[in-house]
């Protein structure tokens, strides 16, 4: 089994940054704010590299759909050990209207161009929390999907994937090619070591345009407003269970 693996990476605002709403209330402040690779995508990259190290995969290609700065994210992936990187470059205006509906089309096109056998994505991006790209990509390609994966095994028949679902764990098998989305407990991503960071400089990074992948970006939705969550109001203290029940009834909660 020598799979060609395609991994999607998204450049998002770093998870530790305190998010601020833009004055125009149509988005969040991104200018000058620290960005990094979406944490679930790091897990996806790590899984792909592990498959290559276990000799189940022969090549790990990372792809990102974004503005020029997304190259930084791709370099991180290369520094982790990916072999090649592809940036499908969008202008800032195009990026504003990009949604999983568009990304999935782009990824499907790239997978076809690359002849990929397996696509691994992060289950969701921490900026939009959509949890949709993997599913849509599979649909476009008419491939099976195994989402929220916490364990992935490559077998002679295809994949055996353990999924984290509301009720617990679910084990499914799929044939290949397939799309997998990585959940939190799939693995712990490695640090980029200095030697790998140096090797990464020599690895190939290609830039493609939307026309290269044959995708048109049409605006599907308009953001009406973005607001801070409401400030949490103070609670009240009650002295016994009866008062608690009374207070809950009064608030219409029970």
């Amino acid at each position: 089994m020598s799979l060609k693996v395609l991994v999607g990476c998204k450049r998002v605002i770093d998870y530790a940054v305190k998010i601020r709403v833009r004055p125009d209330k149509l988005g969040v402040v991104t200018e000058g704010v620290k960005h990094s690779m979406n944490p679930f995508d790091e897990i996806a990259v790590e899984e792909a590299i592990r498959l290559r190290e276990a000799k189940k995969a022969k090549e790990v290609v990372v792809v990102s759909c974004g503005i020029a700065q997304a190259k930084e994210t791709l370099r991180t992936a290369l520094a982790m050990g990916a072999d090649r990187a592809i940036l499908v470059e969008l202008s800032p205006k195009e990026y504003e209207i990009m949604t999983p509906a568009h990304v999935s089309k782009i990824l499907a096109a790239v997978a076809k161009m690359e002849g990929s056998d397996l696509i691994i994505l992060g289950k969701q991006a921490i900026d939009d929390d959509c949890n949709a790209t993997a599913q849509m990509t599979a649909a476009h390609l008419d491939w099976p999907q195994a989402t929220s994966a916490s364990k992935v095994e490559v077998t002679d028949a295809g994949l055996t994937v353990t999924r984290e679902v509301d009720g617990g764990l679910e084990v499914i098998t799929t044939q290949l090619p397939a799309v997998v989305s990585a959940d939190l407990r799939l693995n712990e991503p490695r640090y980029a070591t200095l030697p790998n960071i140096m090797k990464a400089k020599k690895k190939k990074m290609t830039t493609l345009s939307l026309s290269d992948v044959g995708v048109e970006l049409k605006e599907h939705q308009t953001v009406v407003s973005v607001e801070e969550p409401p400030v949490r109001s103070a609670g009240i203290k009650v002295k016994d269970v009866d008062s608690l029940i009374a207070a809950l009834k009064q608030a219409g909660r029970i």
Partner: protein
Amino acid sequence: GRGLASLRVIDPAFISVFGMLSRSRSLICPFRVVRRYQLSRLHCVFSRRFTSDLFSPTEEHTSLRNSLRKWVKSDVEDQALLFNKEEKFNQSLFKKCAELGLLGITAEEKYGGSELDAVAAVIANEEISYSDPGFCLSYLAHSTLFVNNLSQNGSSAQKEKYLPSACSGDTIGGMCMSESETGTDALAMTMTAVREDESKGGNWILNGGKMWITNGCVSDDQPGDVFLVYARTGAKDQQRDAISQFIVESSFKGFSLGFKIKDKCGMRSSPTAGLVFDECIVPAENLVGEIGKAHRCMMQNLEIERLVLAAMSLGIARRCIDEMNQYATDRLSFGRPLRDHGQIQRHLSESYAEYMAARTYVYHAALHTDLNEPGHRLDTDGSKLVAGPMAKRVADRAMQVLGGNGYVGEFVVERLWRDSKLLEIGGGTNEALQMNITKELKSIEKLE
């Protein structure tokens, strides 16, 4: 959502301005012009790819800092208090540094190093010192005092023999300059190196003792593996600075671990020792550079040594500010958070401003320090003279802001307070730096 508490996040990797950053060997010019030229080469880089600022001049540096910050948080932070308490050296953490490519951070790639610049070394030491200055001191002694010095001054054969295992963490190294009676007055050292007759083998015989050697031992009774040792090859009444440099392996006959220095105030997770050289036989090929000319090697390496020690002070200060900043919000006094009180405002604000001033100076000096040649002493020494006392003051204010909690191990600042003091003494006492800077100033009629 953001429920990704313990996830390791990797950051952007380096780009191909690497060539620009690596030590530019072709620029050999004795005058200050060389620095401006190098800076303008870097400026070309900056205008194309200036992502950050003075403290992380290129994407490469940003990447290094981000990766390190996360690694330190997950692997270095939690072990710090215990190793400090037990005065033990964390050998497996040291090995982890090798995996990350940190041990040979400035050494040539062909010997296993990462071949980065002074700024990268400063970043590494600053980031590690945020959590464990003690461990960082051992890292510094190995990577700067041993690896960098040998990388600069050793012959190909010597580098071939000793650098790969030092970069891989298979050997741990240090540097022996100070003795029990000579510190600041380094050139008054009494250890001698006398050459045998060719007929007997032409070896060097070293006699004397060295003191305060970081990594001199790795445990109570195990010595470190290899040292760069300075010894007097000229007669005492001859030139004071007829000093030579040797590579001494702890397995050489006549070398022994005198004793591990215990009960240190701070830097307790860094092992320090007194070493004994009693008719110690050093093969002729282990002389580094020319006989009697090691003074130059010593001075040159002291420049980067002082920068990275200053970097340690920066890491200590940054941690102390983070701790007191948070505490000043969380802790209430007289019905208000501490930070509403003027005296606390003074502690916090002065710490921040002094820290930023020191940080700017250190990184500015690092940017201008060419690892390949000396000539930056004024500002490398100036950096340490500013940063060392600054970190001590900031740590003291942090302990004061944290009050009783600041006096206790669990709250981190007391350990950093104890660690910070060393930087006014080791690697150049305040007094040594004052002496050097005054000497440098003598030849400057007017400052720029």
